């Protein structure tokens, strides 16, 4: 979003759109999963992407990593525009720069492949090191990802590892190709609470050591706050707020962000539970209203909110909100 900045943008999305067609002949409907997303991530930066189910956050990640083809918009990698449709060779080259960590440690590793095999593959495909040095490199990566002792883990099959260890293998696999950007799709939500922090810390350590950036996708606001330098909030395929992590959490501007904050568990802030009065459900993505998608549930809704989706307004140097409440603040 910002040109002329000292630090380069590793990735930049402009007006990214993703639609899915569902239904059979005659009854096709379009799911508007991602509706015009703009953001950029710099080197060594963690951008937290927060939203509930149906917000489109996972779809955004899958489009960036090219598991899905974007329907529209532009994606820039290191300042270069990438074609929406890529051929196999272009894809392989792209994948050296953009990698992914999956949510479910119990299904993201092939149950029949040893850890060693799983980590050898990316090294081979992207020719990271010459053949003789592959095993050594794998052991090195295992150690970096906190899997000890590496020689033992090398021969293990996934079922012999705990959830936390499997997730570390997933991290190792992503880091193996020395990417610039890693998309972490809810990497800790299926892990036990007591090991989540360690996994997140591991990811942050790798950020410093390897210089990798993260798009950290989560529904957990507190986790996003811990991990991210900046946070972006998504609702019904739209980006509704984006700004520095502390600002967005401590002083949320968009009514939806405020709702998320109220609803989040806060054991540390005393034992009087906050009452959440907002009702309603997430909108139907095949039938989005023309105006702001949050309007039906918004306690501050105005008539103009129904007319069109509000523009992003800048309310501080790096803090943007998509809401009519602030339209005069920019």
């Amino acid at each position: 979003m910002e040109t002329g900045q000292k630090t380069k943008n590793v990735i930049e999305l402009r007006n990214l759109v993703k639609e899915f067609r569902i239904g059979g002949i005659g009854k096709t409907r379009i799911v508007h999963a991602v509706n015009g997303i703009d953001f950029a991530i710099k080197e060594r930066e963690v951008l937290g992407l927060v939203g509930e189910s149906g917000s489109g956050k996972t779809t955004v990640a899958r489009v960036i990593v090219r598991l899905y083809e974007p329907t529209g918009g532009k994606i820039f990698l290191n300042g270069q525009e990438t074609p929406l449709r890529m051929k196999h060779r272009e894809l392989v080259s792209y994948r050296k720069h953009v990698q992914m960590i999956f949510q479910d440690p119990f299904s993201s590793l092939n149950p029949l492949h040893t850890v060693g095999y799983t980590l050898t593959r990316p090294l081979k495909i992207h020719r990271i090191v010459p053949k003789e040095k592959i095993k050594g490199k794998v052991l090195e990566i295992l150690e970096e990802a906190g899997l000890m002792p590496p020689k033992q883990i090398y021969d293990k099959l996934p079922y012999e590892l705990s959830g936390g260890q499997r997730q570390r293998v997933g991290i190792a696999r992503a880091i193996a190709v020395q990417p610039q950007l890693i998309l972490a799709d809810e990497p800790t939500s299926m892990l036990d609470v007591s090991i989540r922090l360690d996994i997140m810390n591991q990811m942050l350590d790798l950020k410093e050591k390897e210089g990798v950036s993260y798009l950290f996708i989560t529904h957990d606001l507190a986790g996003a706050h811990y991990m991210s330098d900046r946070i972006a909030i998504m609702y019904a395929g739209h980006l509704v707020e984006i700004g520095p992590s502390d600002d967005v959490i401590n002083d949320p501007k968009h009514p939806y962000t405020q709702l998320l904050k109220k609803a989040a568990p806060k054991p540390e802030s005393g034992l009087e539970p906050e009452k959440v009065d907002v009702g309603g459900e997430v909108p139907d993505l095949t039938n989005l209203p023309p105006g702001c998608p949050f309007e039906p549930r918004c306690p501050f809704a105005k008539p103009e909110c129904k007319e069109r989706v509000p523009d992003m307004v800048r309310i501080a140097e790096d803090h943007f909100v998509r809401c009519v409440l602030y339209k005069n603040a920019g």
Partner: protein
Amino acid sequence: MDALLKVKDLNAGYEFTNFKTWAVRNVSFELNKGEFLGIAGESGCGKSTLAFGVIRLLMPPGKIFSGSIEFNGIDLMKVDDESLRKMRWKEFSMVFQASMNVLNPVLKVRTQIYNSIKYHVNMTESELEKRAKELLNLVNVSSKYLDAYPHQLSGGMKQRVVIAMALALNPKLVIMDEPTTALDVVVQRRILQEIDELRRQLGFAIIFITHDLSLLVEISDSLAIMYAGQIIEKAPSEKLYAKPLHPYTYGLMHSFPPLVGKRQKLHGIAGRPPDLSSDIKGCPFYPRCEKRINGVCDVENPKLVEIESEHFVACHLYDGK
């Protein structure tokens, strides 16, 4: 003391062809009428086994090895199957994990609510309808959904329907096993509020099982923390939160990054829980405990003892050893 449920020295687990797993080890606790007890623990700690075991719902290979379960004065271990069946749903009921996926997709909501009643009590068609409407009303679901199919309801609504079904016969105890895990945070918060309101309204006791301690602290009366099949600490929620005694509880509470405030580096608990298919010598938390006492903690398993009023801990730091 009007204790609704008294569990004493319960041992339960799973019996396979080659080995046994002791998922619940010598668990004892009491639950009063209308009390909200939260049981927190991580995967493999035995909390689900405990939940199923307490109301005698463990199916093979699950099995209760020993211990007593007294519900309203009746020993559930000594009751025959027929009486158990009669007690189920009337005296105690259960909301299972990911229940919303347990709703039968080819039956209407109405039919499923009726079934949950009919299996246990005889009612006429009109009585059933009246009760079904009452129940949906209780959980804030419009009665027009009586004739809908599960896929037409959102996740939150499905969960509410399941809760309504659990309350159909006004049980005295409802066990909820991770009822909100699959829901979004806003819906989760609302459902928890509703569950709490219902409890105050109808007076039933709740055993709420979860791995997410942060949820429980705000709404439960008392909290029990499970680790490796044992209850290692139990206390009223504010006490537990203000002063967690067991190192595991302390570690667990500090594993949650705080929502507000400055970002600072925290850490979780290193290591992993022990394998429940083998005997554990000494305290099960010993390998991961920062405050362990060599020669004591690795030798003897501490017993759950009342250290202060209603605050129980199983830890050698407090039992004078």
